[in-house]
């Protein structure tokens, strides 16, 4: 069991490390300039799929741009948006969820009203509306996604805290004279960490997929920056003639998200003291 747990962390870590290296060292790793258009090798299949150019490992798109190079450069946006959004949304959501669940009454009412307003927005619409208002851009997409993701943390943490605060150890801590914020930080919140890890894992995955969705709809980052979602959107028109235009960017998103989930699962198993004891 311990080996399997470590294997998940190792595999997930390796996938993420590879993507991190790809993102940071993209100019060194990419065989071509991702924006370089060449008319001769347009819609060239990968060599191993019967294509003629061995230089373009994953083929070329309708403008003759190298798919592999664009995927390598696309990893930058996915990782940047994913990591930043999850951290910011987690901080806001967990704080509000914990105080709402623990203090109840007016605090819970106020936080719940705000979360209800945000939760009532269809996520994509909220992101689309914000992007329409803010305009395309990496910072804007982080803001738009953060504003629509923090509520997930908030609701789950609130639910957990609602249940935890009825438990004997909290009553005992109160009876011993523990201050509310001390009990919340020292006894209640640590017991929600397993759930937060699960939520954060899903959130990271969802954020990366959402960024790709917005780019797929043409609402993400500007067209001058290659992203996996925009590659999928461009490739859709050529699906029957050149399926590699949609297969490889989609695989890149899938492998990234798969790696994050694998890592999150392994970390949760490792850090959960109850699981470790068993």
């Amino acid at each position, binding site marked *: 069991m311990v080996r399997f747990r470590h294997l998940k962390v190792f595999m997930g870590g390796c996938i993420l490390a590879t993507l991190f290296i790809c993102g940071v060292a993209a100019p060194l790793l990419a065989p071509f300039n991702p924006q370089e258009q060449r008319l001769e090798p347009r819609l060239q299949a990968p060599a191993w799929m019967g294509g003629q150019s061995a230089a373009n490992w994953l083929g070329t798109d309708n403008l003759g741009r190298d798919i592999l190079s664009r995927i390598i450069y696309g990893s930058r946006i996915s990782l940047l948006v994913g990591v930043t959004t999850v951290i910011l949304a987690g901080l806001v959501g967990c704080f509000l969820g914990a105080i709402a669940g623990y203090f109840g009454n007016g605090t819970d009412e106020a936080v719940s009203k705000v979360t209800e307003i945000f939760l*009532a927005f269809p996520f994509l619409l909220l992101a689309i509306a914000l992007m329409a208002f803010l305009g395309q851009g990496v910072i804007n997409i982080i803001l738009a996604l953060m504003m629509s993701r923090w509520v997930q943390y908030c609701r789950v943490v609130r639910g957990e805290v609602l249940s935890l605060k009825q438990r004997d150890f909290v009553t005992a801590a109160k009876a011993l004279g523990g201050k509310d914020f001390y009990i919340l930080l020292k006894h209640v919140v640590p017991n929600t960490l397993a759930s937060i890890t699960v939520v954060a894992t899903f959130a990271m995955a969802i954020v990366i997929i959402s960024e790709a969705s917005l780019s797929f709809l043409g609402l993400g980052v500007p067209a001058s920056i290659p992203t996996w979602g925009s590659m999928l959107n461009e490739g859709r028109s050529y699906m029957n003639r050149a399926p590699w235009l949609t297969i490889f960017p989609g695989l890149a998103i899938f492998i990234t998200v798969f790696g994050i989930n694998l890592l999150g699962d392994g970390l949760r198993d490792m850090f959960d003291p109850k699981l470790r004891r068993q």
Partner: protein
Amino acid sequence: MIGRRLIGAIPVLLGISFLVFLLMHLAPGDPVVLLLGDDATPADVARVRHEWGLDQSLPVQYWQFVSRAMVGDFGQSLKFGEPVLKLVFERLPATVELAVVSLLVAILISIPIGVYSAIKRDTLIDHAGTGMALIGVSLPNFWLGIMLIYFLGGQWNLLPVAGRIEYGIEVKPITHLYLVDSLITGNLTAFWSVLQHLMMPAVTLGTALAAIVTRITRSSVLEVMRQEYVMTARAKGLSERVVVWRHILRNALITVITILGLQLGALLNGSVITETVFSYPGIGDLLIQSISVRDYRLTQVLILFFGIIYFVVNMLVDVLYTLVDPRIKL
């Protein structure tokens, strides 16, 4: 309790409508110019703006929107030229049908796998279950949709790739849910056609939900299995089936219900992109169309609808909380 929640919904719905109203109006671009095109003269633009009340101040426009909404008058769509409520109700059943079928697909797959994985922890079955869930949760739904269209629709020609029913097949509208209507009228040809059209979108929309619920169910059941009352139940000599169904599942369902409640909203959101990929004529598809031409009247109403649906779901989740775990007080 429900009455109190309903009263509490009013400020939330007003907040939603106000935020959306503000965002749609502050966003760059003029809906009239977008609709009339670049060739429109300034006089034409001014006339249409006056006709639609867009030359009024923002508070006046918002007040008009709210006061009309109270009597069910949401005005005409700027793009389609029809009452927005009519457009929404025409498309709503398609989305409801898609969401319900996707939810059923997700629940039927996820809860048995999640429970069984937890009970058979660290066996091959558990690894297969969690592995499938990992793959499911990692698949971007629009990519899954595109791949299904490419393979099942394009390469193997097994399923229709777009629409809600085959062209030429009619369904007598009763509930406007084609699956239900075709069954009521005994029109099996239509039923089969609708089912075929729903398969790919429902799998696309339901896969991520199934994966998430499988993971949460497994993790929640494992958590409950460690509790002392479960050990006590086993020590009392209760059969494993009674321990699982009466003691573990009931408590594990609290987290599962929370996630299902939250994910129902995601299901409606996911319908936006799924309907776009499959050209499925629901309100998600309508929403993207209305946003692209900045038909703000239609957009506002659609968001309000999503808001109402979501609020009702959240309220039901809260009520279910208290039924499943009496220790929780709302």
